[in-house]
């Protein structure tokens, strides 16, 4: 690798006084500042944007004025902004959702578990698939199998997730094979609501298509990345040395190659999270999965600024938390930083 030695991006692990606690604290502090900066920009943009939450309905002008007063939209923006920020800081009150007619916090609490379920499933799937396929392709480099994997992953990587979703929906939910259900989390046509185990089985069945859609694009990217990393490691001298010592191929692969490729994978882990969450916004909209992403799009159409800001806040926090976790894992696993401590 050209240039200075690879090190974790924001963390100056080799510098004097680099303690893990301080690093984590600094990251959290910067994250909070940025989060609020983005929220402020968001607020200003939504304020400047045209479009009225109450326009277009059958209300008269007087009723509209009444409604604006009721929801406090008649007061100046600065006043509402300071009140909104105060609400978040003091009581985690994110305002009132015009779309769902309940506090934004309640709406978020409903939708967050669904999004977490979808993204975590997709995350595990894409990482597992990506590492397995990438390693496999690297071990068979130059063969037809490798070529086929490279072409397929390039095509998958260039496929928009909504298109993949629509195709899977057409093939497996509506067209030839009706294997997996497409829309929502449960079958709404069923008269009696499901309970306990049955409910979870039903949800899992509905999870199959969205999770695969979300995972495939990422899996292709991971496969490309892992293939390159493994190829890099295989060429190095210590693998040759291990072979010379008579260690079995399987053991070399697991104990030496994958272990060495683990660190670069870990570095990309945190950076890949925004793409996963961004993908969830689209995939949830394709499959009607009742999570935060779908809600974000619907809140835009309903001109529900409070809900959109709340969702942005939660999704950004999710990514930040994941990033932090990846950083800590990195600190724990990288031999250089282990020595530094």
């Amino acid at each position, binding site marked *: 690798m*050209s*240039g*200075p*030695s*690879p*090190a*974790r*991006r*924001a*963390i100056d692990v*080799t510098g004097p006084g680099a303690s893990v606690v301080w690093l984590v604290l600094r990251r959290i502090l*910067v*994250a909070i*500042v*940025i989060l609020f900066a*983005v929220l402020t920009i968001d607020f200003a*943009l*939504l304020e400047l*944007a*045209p*479009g009225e939450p109450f326009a277009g309905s059958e209300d008269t002008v007087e009723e509209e004025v009444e409604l604006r007063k009721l929801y406090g939209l008649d007061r100046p923006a600065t006043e509402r902004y300071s009140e909104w920020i105060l609400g978040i800081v003091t009581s985690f009150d994110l305002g009132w959702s015009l779309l769902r007619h309940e506090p934004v916090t309640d709406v978020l609490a409903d939708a967050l578990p669904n999004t977490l379920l979808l993204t975590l499933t997709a995350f595990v799937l894409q990482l597992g698939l990506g590492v397995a396929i990438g390693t496999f392709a690297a071990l068979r480099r130059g063969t037809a199998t490798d070529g086929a994997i490279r072409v397929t992953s*390039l*095509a998958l990587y*260039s*496929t*928009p*997730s*909504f*298109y993949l979703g*629509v*195709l899977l929906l*057409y093939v497996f939910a*509506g*067209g030839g094979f009706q294997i997996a259900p497409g829309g929502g989390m449960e079958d709404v046509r069923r008269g009696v609501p499901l309970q306990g185990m049955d409910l979870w089985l039903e949800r899992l069945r509905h999870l199959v298509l969205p999770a695969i859609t979300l995972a495939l694009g990422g899996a292709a*990217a*991971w496969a490309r*990345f892992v293939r*390159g990393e493994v190829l*890099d490691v295989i060429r190095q001298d210590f693998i040759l040395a291990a072979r010379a010592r008579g260690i079995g191929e399987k053991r070399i692969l697991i104990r030496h190659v994958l272990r060495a490729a683990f660190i*670069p994978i870990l*570095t*990309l882990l945190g*950076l*890949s999270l*925004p*793409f996963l*969450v*961004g993908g969830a*916004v*689209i995939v949830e*909209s394709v499959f009607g999965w009742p999570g935060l992403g779908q809600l*974000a*799009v619907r809140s*835009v*159409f309903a001109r529900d600024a409070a809900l959109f800001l709340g969702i*942005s806040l939660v*999704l*950004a926090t999710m*990514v*930040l938390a994941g990033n932090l976790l990846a950083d800590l894992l990195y600190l724990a696993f990288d031999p250089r930083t282990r020595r530094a401590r």
Partner: protein
Amino acid sequence: MSALRPAPSWTDWVPGLALARVGRRGWGYACLVLFGSLVALACWRGDRVIEAVEAITASGYVEGRTLTPDAALDVIIAALVLVATAALSFAGPLFASRAIDRPAETPLRPVSRIRSRVLANRQVRAGGVLLLLLYLVALLAPLLSPYDPILIGDLDTARLLPPSFEHPLGTDRFARDVFSRLLWGSRVSLSVGLLAVAISVTLGVLVGAFAGYAGGFLDGLVMRILDALLCFPTILLVIACVGFLEDRSIWLVVTVIGLLSWMDVARLMRGQLLSLVQRDWFLAARGLGASAPRIIFRHLLPNALTPILVVSTLRVGNVILLEASLGFLGLGITPPTPTWGGMIHESRGQIFSEWWIPFAAGLAVVITVTAWHLLGDGLRDALDPRIGREEASPQAIAPARRATA
């Protein structure tokens, strides 16, 4: 290539055949096919061009004229592009065949060596040819498309027709020809990608160069802000900026995407600078008393260009994906402007009955994005096998690992 030049023959004046005669069969026949199809297109659509010229030159209202001045201008520009491309595909092979024929006594200059290495790469060739064709289709859309892409058709008889000879991809809910909309939609996707990346690369290079060169506190501040901004899914930021607006023009979408996606370019640029300032020639330039802008623009930038070029090429594909996703969510460029993502959005209710509409529009996106990724991958392999293999991932920010040391 033999040193003996084949005897001149009349076939040398057929476009491409001269090239085929000196051994470049693939390129030669490709030029011939291109030239032939362009001439055929010109003959087939000649009346449309004449009509457009009349519409522009005639002053005042003329009975029975349907072309608006804007549409007529589109047609004329397309006709000019057609003539220019045809001339190129005619004259290019003639000159190329003569150049190839010259005995190569002098060693190639470095620039030509790089060029031949890039052109020898299979991925570059596949991606480049695909993109040339796609951009040609976009430029020639006014001539190629059989119907108007925006004008609402006969709602009683021509709604949601299945594919037929008149309508290769059927018609949509507003009785518009889907094939025409697909052709015109290529203009949006292809230009959004290029323009947004132009903005983000300019911004990213400037910020990265600033941070890398300034160093110290400013560098730390800029990098912290970049880190934090990278934590937000770009699509959410873009939706926050454009979603609540009523009228989303292509310029608005381009600007917003460009302004929101420069962060990783800045990071890459900074990393490059940090490694370049350790070279001896940098010290020499500084010692000679060159000013900071001069050092940055004359010495550092040209040396950092290769990875930036590779990342930008890959980036164009990702921006096209982003724009299509926005369109699919119904938050892209406002209808009735045809966009590929928007076409899928409009056909959402009929995925199972009129499946060919989303299928064709999505396929168009996949082909375009794949072409850009092929070009980017190939460029990276050809220019420097070692530079940031990681940039290929959608994460596209991996060079950061090198950035801080």
